[in-house]
């Protein structure tokens, strides 16, 4: 992709700019699709129909919502810290969007083929916490502050098991480059890391249960990191109004929303790269190629996003103490044991 763009525009700043903007186009389209489908899935799970009036089965509703948000008054509370209040949504979005830089969408396109890709993603997605804390603090509102602090404590505690799960994968693949991890799993569904990767059969059999547990741990952590039900105590509507974005209106609110949905895809995409073969086709060389790769990556990512939405409308919200219990007393010990097991299997 970068060679292709270079051949058209030459080795200029424009090429780099276009490469950087491509994921933004993806995020915007993806956010509209997810916004619509989440409402539809939620409604159908509750035996309702959701939007039916705007276009066929309400397909135009996300555009209507977007238009509405664009027209909304942009309110900044007088007691708010103006600078931080304005900056916060952008910090959150930048933290999320920066992660797209290393996501390998296809064998032909990855914003940047960083050798420390995974490390970079984990580091950069922590910037989101800063943004959320800024939003909560600058709003000068008790609910916002509670939401922000809850969010920070939650994300920090869940990053540990998530990082351990990532570490186990890195121990198997021997690289942090997301493209390399994907290539490692190429050659069909049996080579995906959740099924033990392309290792000798003896190793695979031992790795299989460990990898499934690790995938589960990573997925639970990723749900907690995007602040969605059952881990949505930062925005618990019934107790905290709307959490850290209570005071936000109009486009700033929309940016928070966009960041949440983008973050949802980022964590799902990381899970896809780590455990489900990234952009590689499940049928080996069949249906592979740059375009198919893009399809498979998006398809797998959206599938995980769907599972996330599905879980959201299934499980109730966890209490704060339950949340900490799950992280520190269940996920962390299990992740540690899994890391030790993976190490032992790889050494043998």
């Amino acid at each position, binding site marked *: 992709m970068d060679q292709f763009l270079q051949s058209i525009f030459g080795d200029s700043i424009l090429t780099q700019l276009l490469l950087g903007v491509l994921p933004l186009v993806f995020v915007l389209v993806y956010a509209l699709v997810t916004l619509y489908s989440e409402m539809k899935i939620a409604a*159908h*799970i509750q035996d*309702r*129909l959701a939007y039916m009036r705007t276009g066929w089965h309400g397909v135009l509703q996300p555009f209507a919502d977007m238009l509405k948000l664009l027209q909304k008054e942009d309110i900044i509370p007088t007691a708010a810290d103006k600078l931080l209040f304005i900056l916060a949504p952008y910090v959150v979005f930048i933290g999320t969007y920066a992660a797209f830089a290393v996501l390998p969408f296809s064998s032909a396109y990855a914003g940047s083929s960083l050798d420390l890709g995974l490390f970079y993603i984990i580091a950069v997605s922590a910037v989101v916490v800063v943004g959320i804390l800024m939003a909560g603090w600058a709003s000068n509102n008790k609910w916002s502050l509670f939401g922000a602090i809850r969010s920070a404590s939650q994300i920090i505690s869940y990053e540990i098991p998530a990082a351990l799960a990532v570490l186990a994968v890195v121990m198997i693949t021997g690289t942090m480059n997301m493209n390399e991890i994907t290539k490692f799993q190429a050659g069909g569904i049996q080579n995906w890391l959740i099924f033990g990767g392309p290792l000798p059969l003896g190793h695979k059999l031992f790795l299989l249960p460990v990898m499934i547990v690790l995938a589960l741990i990573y997925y639970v952590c990723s749900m907690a990191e995007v602040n969605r039900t059952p881990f949505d105590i930062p925005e618990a509507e019934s107790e905290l109004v709307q959490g850290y974005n209570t005071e936000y209106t109009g486009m700033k609110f929309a940016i928070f929303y966009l960041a949440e949905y983008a973050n949802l895809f980022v964590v799902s995409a990381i899970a896809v790269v780590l455990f489900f073969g990234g952009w590689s086709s499940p049928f080996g060389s069949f249906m592979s190629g740059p375009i198919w790769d893009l399809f498979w990556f998006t398809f797998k990512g959206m599938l995980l996003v769907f599972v996330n939405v*599905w879980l959201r409308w*299934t499980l109730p919200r966890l209490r704060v103490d339950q949340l900490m219990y799950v992280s520190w*007393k*269940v996920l962390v010990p299990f992740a540690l044991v899994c890391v030790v097991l993976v190490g032992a299997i790889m050494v043998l």
Partner: protein
Amino acid sequence: MNPVAEYFKGIYDGVHTALIGMGITFGHLFTPAVTVQYPDVKMVMPERVRNRLYVNMDDCIGCDQCAKACPVDCITIKTIKSAPDVDLGMTSRNTKKRLYVPQFDIDIAKCCYCGLCTFPCPTECIVMTDVYEFSEYDRSNLIYSFATMTPAEIETAQIKLKKADEEATVKKAAAAAAAKLAADQKAAEGASAPAPAAKPAAPASGDKGTA
């Protein structure tokens, strides 16, 4: 149970019940919706629903019992007595109508849909219907007037009543005068015939009854 077993059982239960829940919600994803597309499709209301009030003025006898029963005083009724020579007709239940009803207002904005007004009605002319779509932009539009009389009709009714009343008072005065005259005559004739003295008084009391 020992703490270790409890710990693992907790984890097992957590994952297990989450999977059961996901199974249930996945099933519901494909069950047809139980809701209806409201403005296009409407649900059939049950037989005895209590929604907008309706008054059949042909049957109303102006007895005011619904207004008295109303706990929020949303019914206002005014009546005019009919003159003795006017026939207002019969209700569908074969009771004679004796009162004009120039005003029968229901402020449906105040109505609490308890249905208490419908029970005391002797002719069952005030009923609750199944109409529930009657929102308005102005609150005053929610005061429903059921009275059918035009201002002219009200005026004639009032004039007629006044005339009838005057006639009645004239008659009464005449009767009283006649009675007095009879009494005077009786007193003049002496106590020789006490029985006929009661006779003139009888028609006078009869007049009073019809007035």
